[in-house]
């Protein structure tokens, strides 16, 4: 034990302001006059006392440590002390503030060692102590009247310490501090915890138990603590200290506030107040700073120890590191949020899909249907679950659907079928069901499906199929061949019929290859026609010969039409080929017979008429000459035979008569009067003649046409056959006149009209070589011809016929740039 410090009582009772000289020179002793300095000193003293009495204000003041620290802080500054400390009765620790004189560690140690025994005394009296040869005055003031709380210790090296004022201030401080602390103690209502053990350890066992407890508490992998009922931390286990890297002292009392994250502090403290108020265990979470300065999430869990009346005796708690859990939780939360959002989105999508979407169990009973399904059926979605959907399938379909479903689902992962579903308005519509099996992570099987409304499609398809069927039937049945081509004329399709007929493959005819099927003589015509059709975008008909697979050419009628879009552009060309071989052959035969007829008719009437006449006349002449020669021979002396000579002479006479008859009959033929003057349509006669000559005209490339509207009949009186002979003559004359035309177009025009004078006028115009004026004068004379091979009979006979009809015939220059116009008149029927 150190020796009791010797305290100078006189000095100790002196009141003074430390080093402040005026305080030394003017002690407030109550004697002598009050000077200005004294007033000043007094005022300062009052201020200091006031300051000391107002220390313990505010929430933090509930902590005795804080109260002690606060007073020490003020006192060391206010009184310029070398050492000021507070020692509580239940702890050997001295809360202190040390001035510079005693700051060195060995000096402080000396002080602490010196005052310890002193303080052990019941009522430590002011004393003196020497540290490193320097004398210090020390005094202890009780906290509370009986020092039941502890002592306030003040040490100063000033010789005047303590002056009266100083003493006053120290006493005030001690009183205030003890008041505050008493108050705090009152509030915390601290009571020793009840030992719940039945056999309470004593002696050695107690010590061992304490030791074990200590061991457990300090080694459990959790941060444990305890606090007073008013929330003053009074214990932390080692683990706690290690984590925060602070000393127990730093953490005790209210020191633990500093370990919280600044953002959490307020929340955690207010929670802590609530917990204390409620006296119920609760968990709070917050971030705590580790020794390394990083923050980690913790859950703070505390339990109150209650006395039988339900008052809190003490709080016990653990701080659990939940950083990992927290971050996992955060991640989970984020994932959940995303999932939720995704789910909502998905749900929205599923409900908005224009299909009836559903999920079923393995057996097919519905587990989910989307909103649209419910809306379609016009019921709540629940009504469709668990086979409810079957009420909406068409009764005729259910069995088949179930069968298909059964077959599909037994063997495959997906299924599709068709069926009708009843709509809210009772109408059944066709749907296409399509579903897929999914097996989730737990091996549970579900079917996910969508039913698509195919009613319109189905209808269109049915219609299409029907029309396709019809079309196919038509295409298969009609003996025609069809093709199509791109807008620029490339063939891109031939029907089977056509390919088979030509014995070609599509590759053979692709592009322009199809031209090979045409007869070489038609090829140019075909090219031109196709060219023209493509340019004008208007189909036309053309006949041509096409090579059959067996090498034979047959006649076809080719037609084509464009498919145009809204802008009139060609989308596609379609065409058909129709075999017209038989028709063509008949036509050709007809034309040939007509042509033959025309030739015969012409021959009889024109040049060869003369040859015929010559032959007819020649025969009797031949006979006459020969008979005459024979007659002379029989009259010859050498073989005179009068009977034979007479016979020969008789034959001469007979043949001479015969020759005369022939001549007469020719005259009669040429000048024969109309035998039947009947009403007839001259225009139909013209048409007939042109028809007969059609082939001839075409062969000679003559463009023959009837001028003006010739449909109205033009009725005349005449012999149809003879007038047609005239027309035939005039037309053929015109045609022959154009035979040397070269590049000049061969155009023949026939006009017929009613003249005002009761005569019909018919005119045949050509663009041929025309006539010289003197030729025109003589052209109707018999045996006058402008043609090298002509006999000059045709126009002569024409004139005979027309004149016999009471008409006239004449020739003039054509109204065309060249050529001539032959015209005649014949009386009309019913003329005046």
């Amino acid at each position: 034990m150190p020796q009791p410090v010797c305290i100078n009582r006189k000095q100790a009772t002196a009141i003074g302001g430390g080093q402040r000289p005026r305080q030394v020179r003017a002690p407030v002793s109550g004697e002598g006059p009050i000077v200005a300095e004294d007033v000043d000193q007094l005022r300062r003293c009052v201020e200091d006392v006031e300051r000391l009495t107002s220390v313990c204000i505010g929430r933090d003041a509930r902590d005795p440590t804080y109260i002690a620290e606060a007073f020490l802080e003020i006192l060391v500054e206010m009184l310029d002390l070398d050492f000021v400390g507070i020692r509580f009765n239940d702890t050997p620790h001295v809360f202190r503030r040390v001035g510079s004189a005693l700051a060195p560690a060995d000096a402080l140690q000396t002080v602490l060692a010196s005052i310890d025994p002193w303080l052990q005394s019941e009522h430590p009296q002011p004393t003196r102590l020497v540290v490193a040869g320097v004398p210090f005055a020390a005094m202890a003031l009780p906290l509370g009247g009986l020092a039941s709380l502890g002592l306030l210790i003040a040490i100063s090296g000033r010789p005047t310490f303590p002056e009266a004022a100083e003493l006053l201030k120290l006493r005030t401080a001690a009183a205030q501090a003890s008041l505050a602390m008493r108050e705090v103690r009152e509030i915390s209502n601290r009571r020793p915890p009840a030992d719940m053990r039945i056999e309470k350890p004593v002696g050695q066992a107690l010590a061992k138990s304490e030791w074990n407890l200590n061991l457990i508490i300090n080694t459990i992998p959790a941060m444990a603590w305890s606090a007073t009922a008013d929330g003053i931390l009074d214990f932390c286990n080692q683990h706690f200290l290690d984590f925060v890297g602070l000393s127990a002292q730093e953490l005790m009392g209210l020191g633990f506030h500093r370990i919280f994250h600044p953002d959490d502090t307020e929340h955690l403290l207010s929670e802590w107040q609530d917990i204390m108020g409620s006296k119920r265990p609760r968990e709070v979470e917050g971030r705590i700073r580790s020794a390394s300065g990083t923050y980690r999430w913790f859950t703070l869990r505390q339990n109150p120890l209650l006395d039988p009346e339900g008052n809190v005796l003490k709080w016990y708690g653990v701080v659990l590191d939940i950083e990992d859990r927290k971050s996992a939780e955060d991640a989970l939360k984020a994932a959940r949020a995303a999932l939720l959002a995704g789910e909502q989105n998905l749900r929205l999508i599923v409900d908005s899909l224009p299909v009836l979407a559903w999920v079923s169990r393995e057996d097919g009973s519905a587990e989910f249907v989307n909103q649209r399904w419910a809306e379609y059926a016009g019921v709540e979605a629940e009504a469709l679950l668990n086979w409810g959907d079957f009420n909406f399938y068409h009764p005729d379909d259910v069995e088949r659907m179930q069968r298909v479903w059964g077959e599909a689902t037994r063997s495959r992962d997906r299924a599709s079928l068709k069926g009708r579903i009843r709509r809210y308005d009772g109408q059944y519509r066709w749907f296409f069901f399509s579903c897929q099996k999914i097996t989730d992570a737990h091996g549970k099987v579900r079917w996910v499906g969508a039913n698509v409304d195919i009613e319109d499609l189905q209808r269109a398809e049915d219609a299409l199929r029907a029309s396709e069927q019809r079309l196919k039937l038509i295409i298969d049945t009609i003996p025609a061949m069809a093709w199509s081509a791109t807008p620029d004329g490339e063939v891109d399709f031939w029907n089977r019929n056509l390919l088979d007929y030509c014995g070609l493959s599509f590759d053979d005819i692709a592009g322009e290859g199809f031209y090979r099927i045409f007869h070489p003589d038609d090829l140019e015509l075909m090219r031109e026609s196709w060219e023209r059709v493509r340019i004008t975008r208007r189909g036309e008909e053309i006949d041509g010969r096409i090579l059959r697979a067996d090498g034979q050419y047959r006649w076809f009628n080719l037609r084509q039409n464009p498919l145009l879009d809204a802008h009139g552009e060609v989308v596609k060309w379609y065409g058909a080929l129709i075999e017209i071989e038989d028709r063509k052959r008949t036509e050709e035969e007809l034309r040939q017979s007509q042509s033959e007829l025309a030739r015969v008719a012409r021959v009889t009437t024109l040049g060869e008429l003369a040859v015929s006449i010559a032959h007819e006349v020649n025969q009797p002449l031949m006979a006459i000459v020969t008979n005459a020669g024979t007659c002379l021979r029989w009259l010859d002396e050498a073989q005179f035979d009068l009977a034979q000579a007479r016979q020969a002479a008789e034959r001469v006479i007979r043949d001479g008569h015969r020759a005369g008859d022939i001549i007469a009959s020719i005259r009669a033929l040429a000048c024969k009067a109309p035998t039947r003057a009947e009403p007839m349509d001259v225009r139909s006669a013209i048409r007939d003649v042109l028809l007969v000559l059609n082939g001839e005209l075409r062969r000679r490339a003559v463009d023959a046409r009837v001028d003006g509207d010739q449909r109205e009949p033009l009725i005349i009186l005449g012999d149809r056959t003879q007038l047609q002979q005239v027309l035939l003559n005039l037309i053929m004359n015109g045609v022959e006149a154009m035979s040397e035309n070269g590049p000049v177009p061969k155009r023949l025009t026939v006009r017929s009209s009613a003249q005002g004078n009761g005569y019909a006028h018919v005119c045949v115009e050509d663009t041929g070589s025309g006539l010289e004026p003197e030729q025109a004068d003589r052209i109707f004379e018999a045996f006058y011809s402008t043609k090298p091979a002509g006999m000059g009979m045709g126009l002569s006979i024409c004139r005979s016929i027309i004149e016999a009809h009471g008409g006239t015939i004449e020739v003039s220059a054509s109204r065309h740039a060249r050529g001539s116009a032959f015209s005649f008149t014949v009386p009309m029927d019913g003329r005046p």
Partner: protein
Amino acid sequence: MSASADKELPTVYVIDDDASVREALRGLFESVRLLTETYASVQDFLASAPSNRPCCIVLDIRLPGQSGLEFQEMLAKQSDARPIVLISGHVDVQMAVRAMKAGAVDVLTKPVREQDLLEAVNRAIANDQRHRSERRARQSLLSRYATLSEREKQVMALVAAGKLNKQIAADVELTEATVKLHRGQVMRKMGAESVAQLVRLADMLRDAGGGALP
């Protein structure tokens, strides 16, 4: 020349569609003692006219059915050498050339001068008679040659080539005596009185193309 050939009377066949012409021509040919047969068409002629006597066909170019020219060309194609005289109402140069090329004796224009016609017919008949006798001679030669044995034909060819008996014997590997024997046979069978005549006969044979003279 065989005398029997001349004994056959020549006949004129008239084909014309005009009855009065046929009658007039018959009258004319009979006035010069020619046998005359008349036909109205080529078909009638082919159906009934004999072909084994010297004749002349008088034909009108203009005939119903097969024309005169076509008929003439048909006969020429069949190597029928019967002579034809054509008459026609109107004969142009082209037609005449075509007829003559096909072997017509003459082409006459109606009305025909009777003297011209008779001359043409007589000339045609004479030609026909000559052709017929030549054909007969050639046929007799061929039939005689056909009676020769192969060896005799061989010997005949060598004799005709001017070889001596000795040479011939060496060529055919026979004795000269045997060659002489064959040679005599050949001369007899062919009716040749001298080697010169045999050589001429051999030439004729070659021209006729009937005997394959080695």
